[in-house]
């Protein structure tokens, strides 16, 4: 079972308490009716699906209930960091160990 650090509870807790909530840092357009079909499709459906570090949202569902963001390596399943919703996207070069940058 993965252990996930909740940035609100400030504890590292079992995955069972959390739910996955998709890719992070996707901003809803200010004016949806001004979007073309392609732009709207991009916002609704098109996701990165990278092999490697992935910025994603998680929710501490069976705990504080908060959504937060995480950087997880999709190959190793290792969490590089977690941070509060609304916090700026952390720079990958500060997260990866030497030699993997």
């Amino acid at each position, binding site marked *: *079972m993965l252990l996930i650090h909740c940035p*609100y*509870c*400030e*504890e590292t*807790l*079992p*995955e*069972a*308490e959390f739910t996955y909530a998709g890719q992070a840092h996707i901003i809803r357009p200010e004016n949806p009716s001004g979007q073309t079909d392609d732009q709207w499709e991009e916002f609704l459906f098109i996701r990165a699906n990278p092999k490697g570090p992935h910025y994603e949202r998680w929710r501490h*569902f*069976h*705990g*504080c*209930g*908060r959504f937060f963001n995480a950087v997880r390596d999709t190959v190793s399943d290792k969490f590089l960091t977690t941070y509060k919703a609304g916090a700026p996207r952390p720079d990958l070069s500060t997260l990866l160990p030497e030699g993997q940058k």
Partner: protein
Amino acid sequence: MSAPISQKAPGVLAASTAAEIALAAPCARLSLRARGDLAPLNAALGLTLPTRIGQVVPAGERQVICLGPDEWMIHAPSDDTAAIASACADAYATLPHSLVDVSAREVTLTIKGAHAAELLTIGCARDIDGIPVGEGRRTFFDGQTVILWRDGDTAFRMDVWNSFSGHVFDLLKTGCAELAAEHA
């Protein structure tokens, strides 16, 4: 189908040499959500709302646990509900908040005995020893969200939704007997 746990009389429901599971007497349960300067609510409730998640503040017969950055659960004697509600309603003008009576939603199971902490590990993936005495946590127990209060080294309370309490109790009862056999 067996009757819901809430229809049973408060008292011991299952016991073994390992642990004892009892149904606690009904109490008032109020869910409080608020943001910003909490001073008006602190004054209305006559206590200081804890701000660290998991922290419990007892104040006379009232008890508050912080469940999230803007969420608390208040336990109080059943006849205290109206007093709390009207005091908080007076604070509404200065601090808009949500106070909801959820007394009927949950029941409290008390779990105590030499192997109480070990018993909880059958349904809870969290490190039980990571919960300090005198604090509590909202967590996950065999599929259900529960609030686990740690009153002592070997004394816990578990608030579980009434509709799930039969399932949770059955699991605890089985565990109670198994642990007694294992440690016999």
